[in-house]
């Protein structure tokens, strides 16, 4: 019983994973305008990689939660802009902007928020049912 994965662990860890995803979206949006004078130092968008946990026992129990396996950096080429008056411009007059699709990030943010809410819903339903079960026969 001690190490049994409960529905509270499942929803809690999923919420933690969604939180990491929200953090990466915030970082990407915050750095959308961070230009650089070299393609090597420009900000690269980050994305979490989700992975199912406890899939070894899932075949029997059906219970599985999710963790962030790693955070990957996009290797999309930075946007090259010709702005010779920019203080960070290189010798040819170019600056480099991170390849961030702000609309896609906003969509990601909404999806994350929806899934976070769903997990809260699961959590509160499970809690209500458990409390009602405790009161059986009273």
């Amino acid at each position, binding site marked *: 019983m001690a190490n049994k994965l409960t529905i509270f662990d*499942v929803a809690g860890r999923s919420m933690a994973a969604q939180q990491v*995803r929200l953090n990466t979206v915030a970082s990407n949006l915050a750095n959308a305008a961070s230009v650089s004078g070299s393609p090597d130092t420009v900000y690269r968008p980050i994305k979490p990689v989700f992975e199912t946990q406890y899939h070894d026992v899932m075949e029997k129990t*059906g*219970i599985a939660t*999710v963790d962030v396996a790693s955070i990957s950096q996009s290797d999309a080429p930075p946007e090259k802009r010709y702005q010779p008056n920019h203080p960070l411009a290189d010798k040819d007059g170019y600056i480099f902007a991170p390849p961030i699709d702000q609309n896609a990030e906003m969509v990601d943010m909404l999806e*994350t928020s929806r899934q976070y809410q769903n*997990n809260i819903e*699961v959590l509160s339903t499970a809690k209500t*049912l458990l409390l009602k079960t405790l009161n059986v026969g009273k």
Partner: protein
Amino acid sequence: MKSLDALFKADATALSLRQKRLEILGSNIANAATPHFKARDIDFESAYKSAMNSGELTKTASAHIDVGGTADSAEVRYRVPLSPSLDGNTVELHVEQVQFAENATHYEATLSFLNGRINTMRKALKGE
């Protein structure tokens, strides 16, 4: 005690199966964004029937206790998605949410049946 067990067995089996299904559907919702995750579910009706028909264990010592139907024997199956997604994930949130709500309602219904049974027994005991 045998008759009391028989009285509560139906509700106890249903409750443990509902609890198990709650956990499975909760896992599906938790993994809604995980690539390659396959949504799972149990068929409540067949799982309930097989749990209720499970044979009784022979008691070889007085300390052994009766076993009710077990939820562990329920067969976990994969859900067939209505529209599969590109990342191999078969969780469809709307489907899972509806199933989750339905399951929670049935759990509550079972609880109220159980409460009714307990109250009936109590009334009989008190002779009210």
